[in-house]
């Protein structure tokens, strides 16, 4: 791999909101893979006069690696035939589309200026698969979240904790969560439709409210959310519990979302793809927008963060651990559908999709996402995402940025979208807001890094990782953001003059929280009941899957 000893990036307008830098023309100095205060006079120089310099992009929620993503790849050869990606010296070939092959995922994210991506949902039983795919994904520092919200062993521990109410039972839940994070190489805890996937397995049912009972366990989604949020907090995880609420996509589900948030009782949480959870309307009827209310709640609760999950018109692939949701989409659309139950832990549903501006529901979804972006007062707590590829490919991020930054373009698009849907939003009030470059740097870099607790990402202060993206300034913001001129990863140029270069150094970001070893015998018993693999074989210990890595410290007991 190319090794750049030291580099002075000179003359660019730097946007580093974490350090209060907003368009100042200043140098950025890199050495040994880090941002440094100064480099020697003879150091290599990269002249970027007239260009915009930002930290490397951080995608807090995308589906890029693992068994679910791969099942989608196998479902969509037609997309891959239509979008081949040629190889060359130092570059593997592959396929694109909405679910690219792993090498192409890494190259195309890099070509968009991203240097860190979080895989949003892996069943812990299949962590080895996710890790192997990540190892074949170049140019990106990576992390993944493990699905714990329909985990039968945890249900049992939470049930005991609710029944006994004692500190001992609560500690078991916390120790089990820590064990799972250590055993898989994961970065954080993901909860998807807690309890709902269990009901799916029990006769294709679902639940829609946080106080409905999860059959067979005598607990509710509220209790699951509280237990896992508490565990994440008490372990001092850098990223709080990451929640895909019950009742995604349904009319009136903003009620469920607000109930979920109330259940947290002030604990930290990150809300996944908030757009899909912000609807009004009668259950079973047409959805309407409750984005203003959700945005207001988010603003008022500083312990909460969210990514938007914007829908973009065009092709998408829905892939989710929310298996009953996926089945519902299959019943509606009759498209080819993959369902894959994962024993004792999770589920998975995949369905190819297309969002159309002329469709009421899709247009409303598109509108709700934009409302969330435009109404949010604190960009530090609202990350840009499309829940790739559920709302659209990550390749649509530049167009999304243009919608946020260019009111005229946005209004043109609003005029083309389903008029009734637009009337249900506040977009027709001609929201004047245009995102500034500062704010863009926040929602695509600085904010997500902070939300993830990654102190060396998302900024260009001394000590930060030398991940830098340099854009030529263009009036058409979609053009500007779709082709950074230079992208630097760990001080190495991975894109130079718009072209892919040799891949840069990458690492797995993970947490290794302590736990009381006693939990292993409890889990061993639960495993023998629930799993078809041996407890002893479950934890990932293979160094070729876990390294190179960076263990991000936990903050200790809270």
């Amino acid at each position: 791999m190319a090794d750049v000893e030291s580099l002075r990036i000179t003359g660019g307008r730097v946007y580093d909101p974490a350090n209060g830098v907003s368009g100042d023309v200043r140098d950025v100095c890199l050495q040994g893979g880090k941002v440094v205060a100064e480099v020697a006079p003879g150091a290599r120089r990269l002249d970027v006069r007239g260009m915009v310099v930002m930290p490397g992009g951080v995608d807090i929620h995308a589906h890029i690696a693992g068994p679910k993503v791969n099942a989608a790849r196998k479902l969509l050869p037609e997309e891959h035939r239509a979008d081949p990606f040629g190889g060359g010296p130092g570059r593997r070939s592959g396929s694109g589309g909405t679910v690219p092959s792993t090498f192409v995922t890494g190259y195309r994210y890099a070509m968009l200026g991203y240097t860190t991506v979080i895989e949003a949902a892996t069943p812990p039983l299949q962590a080895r698969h996710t890790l192997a795919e990540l190892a074949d994904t170049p140019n990106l520092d990576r992390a993944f979240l493990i699905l714990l919200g329909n985990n039968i062993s945890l249900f049992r521990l939470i049930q005991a904790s609710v029944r006994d109410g004692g500190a001992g039972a609560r500690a078991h839940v916390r120790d089990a969560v820590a064990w799972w994070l250590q055993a898989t190489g994961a970065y954080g805890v993901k909860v998807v439709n807690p309890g709902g996937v269990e009901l799916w397995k029990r006769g294709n049912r679902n639940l829609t409210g946080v106080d409905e009972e999860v059959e067979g366990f005598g607990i509710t989604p509220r209790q699951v959310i509280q237990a896992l949020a508490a565990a994440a907090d008490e372990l001092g995880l850098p990223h709080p519990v990451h929640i895909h609420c019950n009742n995604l996509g349904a009319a009136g589900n903003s009620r469920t979302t607000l109930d979920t948030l109330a259940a947290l009782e002030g604990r930290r949480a990150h809300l996944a793809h908030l757009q899909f959870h912000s609807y009004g309307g009668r259950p079973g009827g047409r959805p309407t927008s409750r984005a203003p209310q959700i945005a207001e709640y988010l603003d008022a609760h500083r312990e909460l963060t969210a990514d938007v999950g914007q829908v973009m018109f065009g092709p998408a692939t829905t892939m989710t651990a929310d298996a009953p949701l996926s089945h519902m989409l299959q019943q509606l659309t009759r498209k080819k559908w993959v369902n894959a139950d994962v024993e004792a832990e999770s589920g998975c549903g995949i369905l190819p999709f297309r969002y159309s501006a002329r469709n009421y529901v899709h247009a409303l979804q598109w509108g709700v996402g934009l409302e969330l972006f435009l109404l949010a007062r604190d960009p530090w707590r609202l990350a840009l995402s499309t829940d790739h590829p559920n709302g659209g490919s990550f390749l649509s991020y530049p167009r999304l940025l243009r919608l946020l930054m260019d009111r005229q373009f946005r209004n043109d698009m609003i005029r083309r979208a389903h008029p009734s849907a637009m009337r249900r939003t506040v977009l027709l009030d001609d929201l004047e807001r245009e995102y500034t470059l500062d704010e863009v740097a926040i929602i695509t870099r600085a904010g997500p890094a902070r939300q993830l607790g990654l102190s060396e990402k998302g900024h260009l202060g001394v000590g930060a990782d030398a991940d830098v993206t340099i854009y030529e300034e263009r009036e058409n913001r979609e053009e500007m953001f779709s082709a950074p001129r230079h992208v630097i990863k760990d001080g190495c140029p991975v894109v130079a003059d718009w072209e892919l270069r040799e891949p840069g150094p990458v690492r797995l970001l993970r947490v290794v929280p302590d736990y009381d070893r006693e939990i292993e015998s409890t889990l061993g018993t639960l495993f023998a009941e629930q799993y078809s693999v041996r407890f002893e074989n479950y934890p990932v210990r293979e160094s070729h899957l876990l390294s190179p890595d960076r263990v991000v410290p936990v903050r200790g007991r809270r």
Partner: protein
Amino acid sequence: MPAHDLGDPGARRTVPHATCMGCGCACDDIELIVAQGWIEEARNACHLGQAWFERRREDLPPARLKGREAGLEEALDAAAGILGGARFPLVYGLGRASTEAQRRAVALTETISGTIDLAGTVLDGPVGVAIQEVGWSTATLGEVRARADLLLCWRADPLTTHPRHFSRYSLEPAGLLVPDGRRDRTLVVVDGGRTDSAREADILLEIRPGWDFELLWALRAILKDAPVDPGLEELTGLRPGSLRELARRLRECRYGAALFGAALATGGDLQVLALLSLVTELNRFTHFVALPLREEGNAAGAEDVLAWQTGFAGAVNFSRGHPRSNPGEFSAVGMLERGEPDAALIVAGDPLAHLPPKAADHLRRIPTVVVGSDATATTAAATIALFTASYSIECAGTVHRMDGVPIALRAALATSWPSDEWVLAAISSRLGTLGDG
């Protein structure tokens, strides 16, 4: 990768929870008794697992070059020469290799602008095509163990092909929602005759060959209240009314699992598609999944690796510098039958033992590089044979169980044999590899 404690090679010791590659079940509860530098006994293993673990490897040289013994370096150089000089090379096998070796194999295929196809495609090819058309509903084995109260074996005989399937995973164990194990489950077998599994059935439907598509389609029609040819049952050898009765049972179970294997797929992908469509339809009424009975220990892994690295699960060609997949054009068996490849790399497989005659003849004619742990008919006919460590015995790695669960293999014995992964990497580096991206 931490191995089992290898200890004193002379002493007898037990190696617990080892993973077997005898079939697609990848049972990971095997207890190995190691003595005299080899596996003396594999406890808990079925006869396939015992054959896997307890085989004695004859005295093998590091390599053979056109039949004579050769050193490793010489053989690697010659292998790179053959593969690098070929215009239309084929990479084949891989169903019994680790995912680490499979990743190297795909990279190597790209370097030589070759074609890669996976052995075991009797089942896997048609299943892959069917899934691309209609999708499917499936589950990991532990779900079946925990919840399934109805098992449908359609032309599947797990007792023969996957001997511990019923006992460890699908029929006999007690589970979360089937506390009485076997008594809480109903086994329905639909097959041509009295197989071993058929003898276990609670309900047996014997059908004539050649009507599987129609029967599966008719079951789906019954579920959709669509008309069904009243003469169909008689044509297929079924008692009148038995189809409606079967449809009722399928619809009214709590959690159904359909097991199917190569026999369904030999009829082509339409038969598999019909079964998968039926299972999807059943999900309007109840929870139903389909599970393939893959025979090779890591056929699932090979497909997974190919899909994540290229975007396609089989029959992938790199001649144009990017992956193209077309089963009709790039399936190994077809290519060999048409005499197209001018060289081949075989990894962890013995294709000469099962290829149709015309394909086998062509494979014998062209220069071949064969990488694997055992002396086989294919290594005997090889231009270059490179012998490697046995998985789960001498060599670690990852295998994907046939339901997609990744399981670690660990080495039970110390060895000086190189792994498949190492050999493929060594060949690649002689070719000026594209690297890992």
